[in-house]
C-alpha cells in the first residue's frame, strides 16, 4: 500500500514515525536518557516553582477548610464558580490521554505509540487536580467520602441516585482507576528494563518493587497484551461517558444556557479538544529538552494538530447549535440568556472564547503552520485558555442572571480562588516533572516494537 502510494505520488507518502537510527539500543538509550542523566538545573528551577505553587495550593485549601467556603467568590446565585469551572477544565484535559491510549490503540493508529504514556500521565494528574475541586467545594472534605459514596451506613439514607452529581462520583472514580491501571500496566516492561539497567542500589530496589517481578517471559508478554487490550476496551466508553455525565450536571438543570441536549457531545468534543491542546503545550518543550525528537516527530505533532482542528469544529458546531436553539426556542429566558452572553457584563469573555476556540484553530488548515513548533505551542495555549473561558461562561453567565431579576448578582473570584487555580496548575506541573524525571516518558518497549514493524512493513 505504502509502495503504491509512493509510486503514484511521492508527496503523500507519510514520513517515518521514528527518525534516525532505529536499532533497539539507540532507541532504549534515547528514551531512557532523561531518567539516567543527572538532574538538570532547568528541571530544578521549574520544580521549585511548582513546589512553591503546590504549597500555595495546600495553604489555600487549608484556609478554605479553616474559614469555610465563604472565602471563595461564590455567592447565591453563582454557587458554582471556580470550583466547578476548574473541575470541568481539568477533567476535560484528561480526556486526550484516554483517547490516545484506548481508542487509537483499538484503531491501530501507530502514531499513538510515542505519545501515549505522556498523555496518560497527563490524564492521571489532571484527574487528581479535577477531583480536588468538588471535594474541597463540599466545605468539609473529610465528610466527602461518606456523603458521596453509597455504602451500607447506619444513617438509613443513600446518596441521591437520580442526581448526575452522584453519577459524577462514579464516572470520575472509574476514570481515575482505569487510567491509573492502564498507565501502570503499560509501564511495567519499561520499569523492568530500568531495574535491569540501573547501577544504584536504591534505584535497583525501587524499580524492582514497582516492576512487580516482570521478567519479559513469553507468558508475561501474552498476558500483558491481552490485559492491555482489555483495559483499552474498558477505557474506550469512558472517553465518552465521563464528560457526558459532567455535562449532565448542567444539562439536567432548567437554567437557560444549561438546559440543552447538545451538551453531551459538545462537552466530549471540547474535552478532547482541550486535552490535545494540553498535550501539545506540554510535549513541544518536553521533546526539545529531553531529546526525544527522534521518537516524537513533527508527524506526531501534526496529527495532534489535525485532531485539534477537527474537534475544534465540533465545538464550534456546538456553539452554533446553542445560539440557534436559544433563538429558535422563542423563550424569553433563553433569548435573555443569549443577550447576556453576547452583550452582557461578561460578553468580552464570550468573544474571547470564540476567538480562542473557533478562530485560532483555523490556522491549522495550513500545513506549514501545523508543523511550526512555535505556532502550535502558542495556538495550543490559546485553546487551553479558550476552553477555560468556555466553562467560565457556561457556569457564571448562566447562573448570575437567571429567571428572576431579583436574584441576579455579579460574580468575582477572590484571591483564594485564584491561588487554588494557579496552585493546581503548579501541582500538576510538579507531578509531571517528577514523572519526566523518574519514569521514561515514552514507552520504550512500544517504540521498539514499532521500529521492528516499520523495518518489515514500511508503516
Amino acid at each position: 500500500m505504502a509502495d503504491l502510494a509512493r509510486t503514484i505520488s511521492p508527496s503523500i507518502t507519510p514520513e517515518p514515525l521514528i527518525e534516525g537510527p532505529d536499532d533497539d539500543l539507540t532507541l532504549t538509550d534515547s528514551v531512557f536518557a532523561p531518567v539516567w542523566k543527572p538532574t538538570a538545573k532547568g528541571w530544578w528551577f521549574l520544580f521549585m516553582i511548582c513546589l512553591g505553587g503546590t504549597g500555595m495550593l495546600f495553604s489555600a485549601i487549608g484556609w478554605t477548610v479553616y474559614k469555610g467556603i465563604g472565602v471563595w467568590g461564590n455567592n447565591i446565585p453563582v454557587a458554582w464558580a471556580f470550583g466547578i469551572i476548574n473541575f470541568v477544565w481539568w477533567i476535560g484535559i484528561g480526556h486526550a490521554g484516554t483517547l490516545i491510549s484506548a481508542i487509537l490503540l483499538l484503531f491501530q493508529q501507530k502514531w499513538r505509540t510515542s505519545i501515549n504514556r505522556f498523555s496518560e500521565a497527563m490524564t492521571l494528574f489532571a484527574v487528581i487536580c479535577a477531583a480536588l475541586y468538588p471535594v474541597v467545594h463540599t466545605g468539609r472534605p473529610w465528610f466527602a467520602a461518606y456523603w458521596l459514596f453509597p455504602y451500607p451506613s447506619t444513617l438509613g439514607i443513600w446518596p441521591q441516585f437520580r442526581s448526575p452529581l452522584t453519577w459524577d462520583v462514579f464516572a470520575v472514580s472509574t476514570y481515575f482507576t482505569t487510567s491509573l491501571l492502564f498507565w501502570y500496566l503499560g509501564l511495567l516492561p519499561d520499569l523492568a528494563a530500568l531495574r535491569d539497567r540501573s547501577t544504584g542500589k536504591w534505584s535497583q530496589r525501587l524499580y524492582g518493587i514497582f516492576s512487580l517481578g516482570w521478567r519479559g517471559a513469553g507468558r508475561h508478554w501474552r498476558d500483558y497484551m491481552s490485559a492491555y487490550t482489555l483495559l483499552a476496551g474498558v477505557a474506550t466508553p469512558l472517553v465518552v461517558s465521563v464528560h457526558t455525565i459532567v455535562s449532565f450536571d448542567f444539562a439536567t438543570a432548567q437554567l437557560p444556557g444549561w438546559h440543552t441536549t447538545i451538551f453531551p457531545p459538545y462537552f466530549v468534543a471540547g474535552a478532547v479538544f482541550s486535552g490535545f491542546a494540553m498535550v501539545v503545550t506540554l510535549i513541544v518543550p518536553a521533546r526539545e529538552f529531553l531529546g526525544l525528537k527522534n521518537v516524537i516527530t513533527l508527524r506526531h505533532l501534526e496529527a495532534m494538530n489535525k485532531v485539534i482542528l477537527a474537534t475544534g469544529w465540533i465545538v464550534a458546531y456546538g456553539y452554533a447549535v446553542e445560539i440557534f436553539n436559544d433563538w429558535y426556542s422563542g423563550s424569553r429566558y433563553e433569548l435573555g440568556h443569549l443577550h447576556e452572553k453576547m452583550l452582557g457584563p461578561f460578553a468580552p469573555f464570550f468573544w474571547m472564547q470564540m476567538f480562542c476556540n473557533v478562530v485560532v484553530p483555523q490556522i491549522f488548515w495550513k500545513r506549514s503552520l501545523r508543523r511550526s513548533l512555535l505556532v502550535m505551542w502558542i495556538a495550543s495555549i490559546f485553546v487551553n485558555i479558550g476552553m477555560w473561558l468556555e466553562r467560565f461562561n457556561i457556569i457564571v453567565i448562566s447562573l448570575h442572571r437567571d429567571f428572576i431579576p431579583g436574584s441576579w448578582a455579579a460574580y468575582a473570584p477572590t484571591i483564594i480562588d485564584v491561588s487554588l487555580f494557579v496552585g493546581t496548575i503548579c501541582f500538576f506541573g510538579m507531578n509531571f516533572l517528577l514523572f519526566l524525571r523518574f519514569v521514561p516518558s515514552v514507552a520504550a518497549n512500544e517504540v521498539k516494537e514499532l521500529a521492528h514493524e516499520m523495518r518489515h512493513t514500511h508503516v
Partner: protein
Amino acid sequence: MLLLLLYKRTPLATLQHEPVTQPIEFDHRHHVADDGIDCRYCHNTVETSSSAGYPATSVCMNCHAQIWNQSPYLDLVRKSYFTGQAIEWKKVHRLPDFVYFNHSIHVAKGVGCVTCHGRVDEMAEIHQGPDMQMSWCLDCHRNPKPNIRPRQYITAMIDPAPGQGTFETHFSESGSNTSQSPTTMNDVHSRTSCTTCHR
C-alpha cells in the same frame, strides 16, 4: 472496612444497653412499677418543651420528706435540697448537636415513652434503650403508624390489651368505641425532609 461497618452497629459503639451509673442509686423499677408514678410526675416538661426535664430535688422531697427521710441512700438528695446545689444526673440518651429534637411534639403526636426509651419499668440502673442510629429515627419517621398510640396511654409501659398487636391494629380491628385510629386522631404524617431534624 467490613469490621468497621460492623463495629458501628454494635453496642460498643452505640452504647445501647450500657448502664449509666448515676450519683444516686435511683431505681426506676421501684418508682415506675411498684409505686406506679407517672413518668411525667418527675419528667414534667416532656409535654411542653424540647427536653423531658430532670426533676428538681424539691420534686424528690415531695415524697422523701415523709418517707425514707433518714435513709443514708438519700443523703445526697437532702444535701442538695438544703444547699440548693442541684444533683448532677448523667445524661443517658445523647444526640449530636446537629440534630434538632423536641420531646413535646413526639408526645403530642402519640409516640409513647416506651417506644424510644424501652421498658424503663424494668431497669434497675437506667440505660439507653434503642441504638440511636439515624436509621432508627428514620424507620419511624418514614412509617410512624406502628408506633403511634392514643395520648391517654402515652406513659403506659405495656399495651392495654397485651398480645393484640400494636395500638394501631388494636384500635382499628377491635371495633372499640373510637372509630379513628391513633394516627388519624393525632394527625400524624411521615416527616423525612432533611430539615425536619437538621435545621
